[in-house]
């Protein structure tokens, strides 16, 4: 048994932590959200130069990592800094799906991705909630190519991306696993329109509407109608990423709250001297350690067989959802009024952490799924 990172990973973690600590300021985050692209070009280029995007791809795909622990350490650091770059969408989802299913020509794109090209991933739809196979966007063969029509909801970082990997149904009924296909869609293609907006927790996203979008034959990524397993695997990896990000956010919130308890004085003493708060902060710490273990469990089983992997996906996401809510609510409460203000660093971290429960299935969704997986 060994819970230490390999030397390479430790170096990456240390370097990334230092870089983000020096680079990510409240102003940078504010400017990123206010900007049209919804992210920071400086930060993104810096991450690309450090090789952070490459760490999300395996060596055979041109990267130098790609395993569960690479994902976990990278996103934990992103969370610790409260950063919101298109790393998940580019590296894990769109990029990961191209790596998993793409033809050689399509995979040639990965080099540019590792170098900083931004992609996004459009799968969820207005009524699909967290249901992975519920896709109504249709792709029909037209001549040599394809025609796509449908709506995609809350597509993160669409304003910054040049392309999206879009899921569409080429056959089957609305919630069938069979019949799902993936397409690489340029976001400036005729027939595609986007309404973009800011999101709680930082950055921008968009609603995409596709009306008779014509795509060439080679826009199809992977087998026609057979993308579900790859989508599920990509979501497992994405869940690992957001769980690790949540953990990083929790660690920063814990540090901020502990420091506040030590310095804020009421009734002539630091409020951290009140036992009522000491015990609650101790519970927060205990739960964050649980969260860390859940992330390790998931990262360590990300390359395991589907049944084992998915059990850990749902276990981790359920636990992270519950602990995240506790950490958000307790940290705000123990700060008092200051915890309610947008100016104070806690606000951004807490909102971002809470919003993670709204991605890839919330705590209850994964509780039910965990039970179903155990029964299967």
């Amino acid at each position, binding site marked *: 048994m060994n819970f230490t990172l390999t030397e390479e990973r430790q170096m990456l973690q240390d370097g990334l932590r230092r870089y983000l600590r020096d680079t990510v300021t409240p102003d940078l985050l504010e400017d990123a959200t206010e900007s049209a692209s919804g992210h920071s070009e400086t930060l993104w280029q810096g991450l690309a130069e450090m090789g952070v995007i490459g760490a999300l791809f395996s060596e055979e795909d041109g990267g130098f990592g790609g395993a569960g622990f690479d994902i976990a350490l990278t996103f934990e650091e992103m969370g610790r800094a409260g950063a919101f770059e298109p790393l998940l969408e580019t590296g894990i989802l769109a990029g990961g799906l191209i790596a998993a299913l793409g033809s050689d020509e399509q995979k040639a794109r990965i080099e540019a991705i590792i170098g900083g090209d931004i992609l996004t991933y459009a799968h969820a739809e207005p009524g699909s*909630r967290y249901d992975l196979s519920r896709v109504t966007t249709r792709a029909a063969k037209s001549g040599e190519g394809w025609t796509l029509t449908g709506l995609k909801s*809350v597509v993160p970082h669409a304003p910054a991306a040049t392309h999206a990997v879009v899921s569409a149904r080429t056959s089957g009924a609305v919630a069938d696993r069979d019949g799902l296909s993936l397409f690489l869609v340029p976001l400036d293609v005729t027939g595609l329109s986007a309404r973009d907006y800011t999101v709680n927790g930082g950055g921008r996203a968009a609603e995409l509407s596709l009306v008779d979008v014509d795509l060439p034959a080679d826009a199809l990524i992977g087998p026609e109608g057979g993308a579900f397993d790859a989508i599920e695997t990509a979501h497992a990896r994405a869940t690992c990423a957001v769980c690790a990000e949540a953990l990083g956010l929790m660690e920063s919130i814990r540090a901020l709250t502990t420091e506040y308890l030590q310095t804020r004085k009421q*009734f002539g003493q630091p409020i951290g001297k009140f036992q009522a708060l000491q015990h609650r902060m101790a519970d927060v710490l205990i739960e964050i350690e649980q969260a860390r273990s859940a992330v390790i469990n998931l990262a360590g089983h990300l390359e395991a067989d589907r049944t084992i992997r998915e059990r850990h996906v749902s276990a981790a996401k359920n636990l992270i959802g519950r602990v995240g809510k506790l950490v958000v609510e307790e940290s705000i409460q123990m700060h008092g*009024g200051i915890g*309610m203000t*947008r100016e104070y660093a806690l606000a951004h971290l807490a909102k971002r952490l*809470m*919003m993670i429960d709204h991605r890839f299935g919330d705590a209850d969704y994964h509780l039910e799924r965990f039970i179903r997986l155990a029964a299967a």
Partner: protein
Amino acid sequence: MDLNYTDEQKAFRDDVRAFLEAKLPKRLSDKVAGGKRLTKADYEEWHAILNEKGWLGVTWPKEHGGTGWDAVERHIFEEETTAAHAPRIVPFGLNMLGPVLMKFGSDAQKAHYLPRILNGDDWWCQGYSEPGAGSDLASVKTTAVRDGDHYIVNGQKTWTTLGQHANMIFCLVRTSKEGKRQEGISFLLIDMDIPGVEVRPIVLLDGEAEVNEVWFNDVKVPVENLVGEENKGWTYAKYLLTHERTNIAGVGFANAGLAALKRIAGLENDGDRKLIDNPFFAAKIAQVEIDLMAMATTNLRTIAAAAAGQAPGAESSMLKVKGTLIRQEINALTRQAAGPYAMPFVSEALDEGSNEGPVGPDYAMPATQAYFNNRKLSIYGGSNEVQRQIVSKMILEL
């Protein structure tokens, strides 16, 4: 034991319903129900409608132009107005300062200020908290130094709710540094248009500027603006806090929130069913509903005791803790129900008549907003920790 309203109380409830049916503008109830931003004019419009009927001074006796209602009638009014999505009555003048002036104010103060509260000439805000004085309110530092016919006020108040709309602020100020801290505090009424008063907005978690910092720089306040006696302000402040804590349970808000939650869960798709048919989510809704049913009765028990002449004591602390936890849980479930659409934030969509429509269902963004905003419920008006302290001291005698 009888859990039902008397015939008179039922008749009263029907009157309130009929009034709301006839007089509550749909424009306003739509905004409240839809989680839209209320403007100063919206609040003033509703206050004026209530005042015309003589129902604005809900907690006031008849001699001062109030309703003269007992605790049960006030409760019924609260229940019906929240169910109908009426804007809340802005409490600072009506529920806080009014009762203090009636009890401790001079005849001149009563004659001048009370009618102005009812007719909307003055918008009051509450200047208690300071950066260094939150839970430990007795440590207020803002000073008022007597200089002839005036006090010269210097210092800073913070978290002043809706101070941006206010023209008047009632403040706890330090007039003496001798003896116990509580014995050097006075209760002063300050006109915010006097030179030296500066109001700066504070933006909260939800992006709204609902509270403010209020700065005083050599502000000259006439001595007749002192309420009661110098250095007795703490007594008045505590009296005010007991009034602030009436209706503290927020049962009406919780009921309205629960109804909205059920409606949303009935609309949200969850696989092949609706979210409300998801046993895990349905269990959570049921759990909070069960808590609320008991809470409503705990609340009525206190109200009945109050109507029978018992002053609410530490019971109101109990109601505050449980009531806010229930409301916050309803807010959390509503946010959860909104699913991925809890994420988009389009500020303009909260304004009436904006061209920017909501992203996704119209209930989604307000659900997230309300969740973050209502974290305040367990912080202000005496935090839940402070309330628990009161319960353990006053009821448990620990």
